[in-house]
């Protein structure tokens, strides 16, 4: 019973959304369900946010390693919450959008979250280089092809590509590196992308069917 009802719900809703594609009056069903999902996400956050609070309060209480940072996390969380919920310092008072310029929420976002997020993102530049040095080796034929393609695209995107291959006559201009880079993007890359995309499409269909038909039910938990 405890498993049958959820399995039935999954089956019913799944089939409904598949059929909806073919029935114009149901055309907006997917959209409506997304709205449901968005509303559910708010409630899920009570669980998630609650979990975040619990973990850090526990850390504080038990004086686990690095507990002082939990104070920072909790106060950051609280401050952002207060700033947003009460729209502190919002020039357009409570009716204006929460992220109106000038509000505390706006300030916190731009002065703290933006630099933090952008910098975390930019760490990638360093990791790309270290991965290039360590891992991009022509170990076998596959890796060699990957490398060559990457190399041509990289060169094609710098002026060096043109300098190196400028001597190639215009009749076979395809072999000039910038053109070759474009060709790789448009032909072999396109082919690989297509194969991957078609495969993914089939994978999604098959997995969706397993879920809808209840063949795959690991996410549901046991009968107890």
């Amino acid at each position, binding site marked *: 019973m405890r498993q049958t009802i959820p399995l039935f719900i999954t089956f019913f809703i799944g089939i409904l959304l*598949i059929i909806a*594609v*073919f*029935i*114009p*009056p149901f*055309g907006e069903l997917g959209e409506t369900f*997304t709205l449901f*999902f968005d509303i*559910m*996400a708010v409630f*899920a*956050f*009570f*669980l*998630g*946010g609650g*979990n*975040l609070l619990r*973990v850090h309060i526990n850390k504080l209480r038990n004086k686990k390693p690095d507990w002082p940072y939990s104070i920072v996390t909790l106060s950051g969380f609280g401050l952002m919450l207060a700033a947003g919920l009460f729209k502190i310092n919002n020039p357009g008072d409570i009716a204006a959008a929460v992220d109106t310029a000038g509000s505390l929420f706006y300030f916190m976002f731009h002065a703290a*979250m933006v630099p*933090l*997020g952008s910098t*975390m*993102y930019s760490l*990638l530049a360093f*990791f*790309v280089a*270290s*991965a290039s040095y360590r*891992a*991009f080796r022509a170990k076998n034929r596959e890796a060699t092809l*990957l490398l060559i393609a*990457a190399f041509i695209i990289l060169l094609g995107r710098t002026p060096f590509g043109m300098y190196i291959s400028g001597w190639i006559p215009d009749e076979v201009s395809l072999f000039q590196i910038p053109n070759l880079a474009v060709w790789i993007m448009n032909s072999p890359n396109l082919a*690989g*992308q297509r194969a*991957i*995309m*078609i*495969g*993914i499409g*089939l*994978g*999604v*269909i*098959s*997995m*969706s*069917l*397993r*879920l809808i*038909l209840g*063949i*795959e039910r*690991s*996410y*549901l*938990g*046991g009968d*107890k």
Partner: protein
Amino acid sequence: MSYHSRRCLRSLPTITAIVSCLLLALPFYASGQEPVTDSVPADTAVVIEAAPPTTVLSSDHKYDDGDQINLSWVPSIDETLKDSKVIGYKIYRAEDGGEFELLAEIPDVDTTNAYADQEVEHGHKYAYYVASVTETGEYASLETMPLEPEREWLDLNKAYLFIMALIISGAVIIYVETAKRGKELFVRKIAGLEAIDDAVGRATEMGRPVLFIPGIHDMDDVQTLAALTILGRVARTIADYDTKIFMPVSRSLVMTAARETIKSSYQAAGRPDAYNDDMVNYVTDEQFGYVAAVDGIMVREKPATVFLLGAFFAESLILAETGNSVGAIQIAGTARPAQLPFFIAACDFTLIGEELFAASAYLSGEPRQLGSLKGQDVGKAIAMVVIIGGVATATLAGAWQMGFAESIHGWLMEVFSTN
């Protein structure tokens, strides 16, 4: 076929011709009223700068929820003149015999002589007229007959999509059923999945935890669902080996779903007591805030094995390189082609696209699940046959203009287009 129906069929062209003539003529007789030209000042001498558009036709948009009417007209004759003063058109509409109101302005006179009115509702009638607009005035056409948009219950434009869905799902279901009856099905080895047991075993030996990252998307992404189905299998192994699993997530819904999944795996392994909610923790929804936290966890907890399965974006390499720097064995998989090269570079095993979705079925080893993999191979085979056949007929039709090839190619293009 009866005599009558045959007779009807024979006279069909004539009837069609008469009906279409009537239809074309309708707008001209539609209304006894004078066209509305009130924007031309009445007290000045009326100078007609442009002719109104003619043959304004409204028609119901087929296969919709009765929420669109298509409008077309023959542009003002002045547009063919060199010094045309027409700068655009205005469309007016009346609902259920009410007042005409401005519906839309179309500035571009060169290209547009049609309009799709999607602001209509099933159950109401709409009449239209179109006016050509010049700098100083408007010149209205005749009104159309009131038309009620029709609601269709089946979108026949999507008949081919329906058949495709039926064939592929049918193949999956047939193979699932075949497998259920006990027929042995062969599925080739997938390297990344063969490695999972060893990877978990390694963590057990080293006494270090397993870190499972299910991507950064919510439950409304199929990749997250795929990650959770794989989690179900991995958690089972972990429960068997009595290893520690740690799973920071970036979405609350994923947290609840992951807890259910792990709990049920522990129950299936007969060790429900070993399960603990703290195995899965919510961190933050923010992409890079989550990455900052996971990176911190990686360098501090030093997991022996890291799973990176699901929807990944820019963070793929940040996570994979940090995991690599702490010496973890990493098994990654995503359906995002742009992130795959990074996983391939920095991880030990990578599930490419489709393999991510096939993984849980493969790992389960259950005949029915393996059957579904066979089913999707049928889809692949169809795609391959269509590609070969399509390219062949297109080439024949292209270079040698062969009639039969042209018709096959034309039909294929009709089937394989979503519009």
